[in-house]
């Protein structure tokens, strides 16, 4: 018995000793050697800017004003996708920009190596406004004031578009207030290389564009913001056109080049090509190439939105090879001087006072700038100018429609606002909706992940379809 007891206690003691510890110190076994933790705001800025091609070189928005057609698979131009997800903006560049702002606020001394703190914050805010503006013009109501709060608010409300615009103007003006002439240059800025004057010009051009958008629904605010922006300094020449810095390397090259690398899916639409041909517009040969089967001679546009096209791609004009084969310096425009000129012309046409020049002059400057942008010789541009009709909202809008070729979202948004061309309509074989889309529907993820806020926003804004007009789209 004693022996047994001894043996049992030995067992128990060993067990207790061995089982007694509650934690074991493993040192730095669990430090991840694969990913970095150092706070490089320059790398975060570069990453945020690399989200811009998704905005400026997107395919889909080119369909709606019907400047672009599909050749074989026409479901995209017939609006088969009606739910679009905005989550990628929030989890991607917007969160990166927020991180830059937070680091410059809370850990300012640790990140000053990458640029003056205030300038870094200015750039981050300006880019946030640019992206939020893009998003609200697509969807309407979006999470803005309650967004990007992580675990602190896992159910962000969607702000109505009017409130978003108010907030964006305020954020943009505050951002411009941060800009200063510090000599500590901002690193990682692949757009402007840290040149704050360029950022100020960009911000004002953005502000001017935003002001024009609300010109029908809130003319007085629109006019005052427009005037402030112009006085603050907008783009002033074609050489100041803002475009995304594509590289030749595969990872950051022009998406149009990738799309045509092994496939031939897109072509200028028949309406676009016919319009340019009818007006003897010298930009046609710069914007598109003639069909392969005619040896590049015939400019035949692709009819838009056919269900069973049955047309050989080699019989159609194609997007100019300068873009689809090289693309580095072509396309990917955020804002152009032509847009600024047309905006100024429009300001005059609306009767806003305090603006320099007059509508006709700005209108002609805009056309000339667009020709220069596309590489047309000055003599041909001048000849074309001689043949255009006088400026009016319609002629200015049609010229803008041409000038914004391949600037998808701007082109679509301005068509929605100005309503020219007014003779296009949804194709007969449209898959969703009742007309040409005037907004994008919310993604399935939003509907399932943020349901109560989604329902509240839709109740105020209108049904979540592509046919519900946005707040500023009163006409």
């Amino acid at each position, binding site marked *: 018995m004693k022996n047994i007891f001894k043996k049992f206690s030995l*067992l128990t003691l060993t*067990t207790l000793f061995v*089982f007694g510890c509650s*934690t*074991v110190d*493993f040192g730095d*076994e*669990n430090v991840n*050697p*694969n*990913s*970095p*933790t150092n706070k*490089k705001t*320059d*790398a975060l800025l*570069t*990453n945020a800017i*690399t989200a811009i091609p998704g905005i400026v070189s997107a395919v889909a928005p080119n369909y709606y004003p019907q400047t672009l057609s599909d050749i074989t698979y026409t479901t995209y131009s017939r609006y088969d996708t009606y739910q679009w*997800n*905005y*989550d990628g903006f*929030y*989890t*991607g560049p*917007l*969160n*990166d920009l*927020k*991180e830059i702002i937070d680091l410059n606020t809370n850990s300012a001394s640790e990140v000053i190596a990458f640029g003056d703190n205030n300038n870094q914050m200015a750039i981050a805010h300006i880019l946030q406004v640019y992206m939020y503006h893009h998003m609200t013009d697509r969807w309407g109501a979006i*999470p803005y004031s*309650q*967004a*990007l*709060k*992580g*675990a602190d608010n*896992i*159910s*962000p409300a969607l702000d109505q578009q009017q409130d978003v615009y108010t907030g964006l103007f305020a954020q943009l003006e505050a951002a411009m207030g941060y800009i200063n002439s510090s000599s500590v240059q901002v690193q*990682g800025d*692949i757009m402007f290389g840290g040149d704050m004057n360029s950022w100020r010009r960009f911000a004002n051009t953005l502000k001017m564009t935003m002001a024009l958008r609300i010109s029908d629904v809130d003319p007085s605010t629109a006019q005052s913001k427009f005037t402030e922006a112009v006085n603050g300094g907008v783009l002033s020449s074609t050489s100041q056109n803002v475009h995304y*810095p594509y590289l030749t*390397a*595969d*990872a*950051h090259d022009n998406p149009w080049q990738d799309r045509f*690398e092994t496939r*031939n899916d897109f072509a200028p639409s028949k309406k676009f090509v016919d319009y340019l041909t009818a007006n003897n517009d010298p930009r046609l040969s710069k914007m598109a190439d003639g069909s392969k089967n005619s*040896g590049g001679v015939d400019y035949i546009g692709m009819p838009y939105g056919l*269900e*069973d096209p*049955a047309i*050989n791609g*080699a019989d159609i004009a194609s997007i100019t090879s300068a873009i689809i084969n090289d693309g580095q310096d072509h396309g990917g425009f955020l804002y152009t001087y032509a847009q600024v000129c047309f905006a100024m012309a429009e300001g005059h046409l609306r009767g806003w006072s305090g603006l320099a020049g007059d509508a006709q002059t700005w209108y002609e400057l805009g056309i000339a700038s667009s020709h220069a942008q596309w590489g047309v010789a000055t003599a041909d541009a001048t000849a074309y100018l001689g043949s255009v009709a006088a400026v009016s909202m319609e002629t200015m809008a049609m010229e803008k429609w041409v000038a914004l070729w391949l600037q998808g979202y701007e082109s679509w948004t301005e068509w929605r606002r100005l309503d020219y061309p007014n003779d296009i309509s949804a194709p007969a074989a449209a898959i969703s909706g009742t007309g040409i889309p005037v907004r994008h529907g919310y993604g*399935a*993820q*939003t509907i399932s992940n*943020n349901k109560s*806020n989604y329902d509240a926003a839709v109740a105020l804004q209108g049904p979540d379809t592509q046919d519900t007009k946005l707040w500023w789209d009163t006409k």
Partner: protein
Amino acid sequence: MKTNFKKFFTLSFMIMFQWGLAQTSVSGTVSDSSGVPLPGATVIVAGTSNGVTTDFDGVYSISASEGDVLSISYVGFVTQNVTIGASATVNVSLVADNALEEVVVTALGISRDKKSIGFSQQTVAGDVLATAKETDLNVALTGKVAGVQMIGGSSSTFDNGYLRLRGEDNLLYVVDGIKVYSMTDINTDNVESISVLKGAAATALYGADAQSGVIVITSKKAKAGESFFTIDHSTTLSNVSILPEYQNEYGGGYYQSWDTFSYNPAIDPSSWAAFNGQNIPYYAADESWGPKLDGTLARHWDSWIPGHPEFGTVRPWEANPNNVKDFYDTGIENSTSLSFNSGGEKYGMRSSARFVDQTLPYPGTERNQLDFGINQTLEINDKLSAYSALNIQLRKTVNFPEQGYGGLGANFNQWFQRQLDMDRLRDNYNYNGGIYSWNRNSARNATPLFWDAPHFSVNDNRNTQNKEVFFGNLGLNYQINDDFAANVEVRRRSNTYSRNNRTGWGGVNTESYGEGRSNYEENEFEARLNYAKDYGDFDVNALVGYQVTQTGSTSLSSSSVGGLTIPGFYSVASSKDRPSYSSTESNKKQISTFSSVSIGYKSMLYLDGSYRLDWGSTANPDDNRIETFGLSGSFIFDKLINVDAISFAKLRAGYSEAPVFPGVYQTSKVYGTGTAHGSKPRFNVPNTLANPYLTGGTRSEFEVGTEVSFLNNRLGFDLTYYDRVDEDLPISIPVPGSTGYSGLSINSGASSTSGVELTLNATPIQSEDFRWDVSFNIASIKKVTDKLYDGINSRVLDYMSWYSLQLQERVGEEWGTFVGRAPRTDDNGTPIYSASGRTQYEGNQVLGNILPDYTGGFSTSFAYKNWNLDAGFDFQSGGLFSSTSNMFAYYSGMHMDTIGLNDKGNPKRDAVSAGGGVHVVGVTSGGDPVDVYQSASTHFYTNYFGNHPNWLYDASYVKLRTLRIGYDFPKSMLENTNFSDINISVIGNNLLLLYSNIPEGGLDPSEIEGSGSLASSYRSQEGGQLPPARTIGLNLSLKF
């Protein structure tokens, strides 16, 4: 001591085998008390290493002298000792030991009496596994274990079988105590037996790694008194067995009218003027809505190859119904195993080698494999013994077939031109240094638009993989005294994969080259103290142990970007743009202690407890300990009820709790990186918010079961019910992306699984010459998601294609729910269409469940004199998977259903205005009637593309998987030879799909690909499944 150590080391390096040194030959028959012969009984000359086993007839023959004692033993019977007298014939009759003394292997390699176990455990014998010489262990286990579901990869590829046990798929495989990295590291010819431990109570001693089940493999070892050498060779041929139902009436194109060539003097050579007016197929189309295959003369794709003798010629536009079948070859596999076994009273040694050479039906593929293993035990003195094992595998694979959407499976079944001649494709795709495809852009432009010629993928897009595996152990056992024994063991495993892959020049995709190497290793040290003692009616076994495990992995990969600069030369160094490079490393460490106690009372009542503590480095350093415990009991009640027919009856019950550690590096916040923009680096804030307080979650499982056997084991069944609850699982909860994150890792989430498992064994006929055994198992499973997070009722497990089909967890529904869009119908069930007959869809519909309702198998074997027939069937009822192949076969006009006559008696593909088209009848959403004819090409895409319910197939099936017909050469024939056993058999694998429920045909639902674009680790979708293959061959095994 010294001599014994020398012996030990000498043995380690020598391969020994003994020929029987003859004195006189003593022979006889060993049978049971009713005279039925016992094959495989062991007969040893006591005190020597001289031993044999009885053959099928129970006959043995051994060299011994008068006065020697023969020791005859057999599992389930009392061992007998017989002294050899003057007669050279000694027949022995053994008495059965009715107490079912089957010994099984349980957690941590502990051998237990089957009767004393309180949890569900099933043994599969090694020779059952080797019936059809299947080298994939998972496939060999199919249908043999209740509760195991096997989903094959395509059997015309190198893909492995995928197992789920009680709905979970991360099973642990342990070979002789060593946790192997991959099931493919195991040489199936070396398996003595497999013990499947199913529930948490069974696996508690293994800790967190084993919570989904453990497959414990015991390797063959030399037994005392045996000394023999075996050669086992099999050669099998493999051919594709099921192909889709292709249509052969219309060829490639988007429309049926012919385009013609129009000679353009501005760009064409003058000799081309003769081509004017020739019929030109729409080469760039990868669909088959083209012209009728009526023999019209046309310029096929290979009539445009410059310098080719057939340049410029027209040929008839006609059907090639067997073109896809002609692509595949007959695969051949040769497998040769050798083993040397030698055992005596104080030592045992077995070494083996297996060589496998294999080619698949998919051309251009090859695999060479060498498995080498050696294990040995040595008694150093009467207290101390040592053992060690070493296993090595070297495997080289050339050209894993590309699967999924984008591979040739997708090409042939979804995007192809039906008239293409496979021989011409093979012979002409590479002509005079140029690469040509059938999918040219146009007559004048040879650049392929979507697809390369199939043999370009086979010959020019190559990949190679080398795999090296090492696993082994070394241990010592020390018997301290009668009650205590100690054991220490070190183990190591190391797996290295190195691969390179390339995309050839001249194809659709940019040429590229990539290579990589990864290594996974684990070192483990374990020490144990065992205690065993009887206290009157009680017998007590206890054990206490300590374990330290270090696991690490490294991986390196790099590939070219943007193309290669030197034609024909494949290297990352010649990348056009800066090559991509990635290198990762991970390490973790675990310290554990474990103990178990089992108490038996009068061999009738048993109680078992086990308890384990693990400290892991991946957890929060302030709280890095987890406890696993299991409790089970069994009650043997056949002696209480005392019915003659019932030879054994047992009731068992168990309960266990097992938590898990979080994955490596999940608790700390880092930035992600992207490809640099020029020279500027990119960081991003990751989409999942790291949670420093993340724990692993807990599983608790309750199990109850009963085992009864009748009529001396002629009939028996094992019935188990289990109920498992998983709580506080670390999951990434989806949050609205507008928070800046798409997921937060938190501990929430609960699910429960329950099921019933039944195994039945019977020997309906047993007589002197003939024996018939059957074995049947079936299991049901139901896994339900109980909770995710407050306010969150669904979580996407897998985003699938097309049109947002998703696999979700939904609170209150079975785990693995398919959610997608379904065609709308009105209240009467009439389908709703647009005015033009286009299907209207309703999104966010629950469409079914991925887990089956029942799985199981049936095996039967007949033995008549020297002949054997073994057959294995397996089945599944319920479960769904999504098929891309048939959906696009409709879309592209490839499928039989897209031709034929409509309800007017006209060809569907005729123009609607000519009475063709497909009749669509229904209502619009407004209630107006719809009664139209849609053109065939519109109908089969617009009403079927993304029509999720139509393409979510029932995965139910019944299959005859294995068949073996063999003949054992009789002992009388072998007496004067050196051989003790020769067997020759015909074997077959993956033989017949007896039942499936796929309306559009063409697929084997028991095979769902796990790799390739669109394929999923959940086996929820096939993107371009390669066909199944049937294997038949011959196996010869010799023992001497």
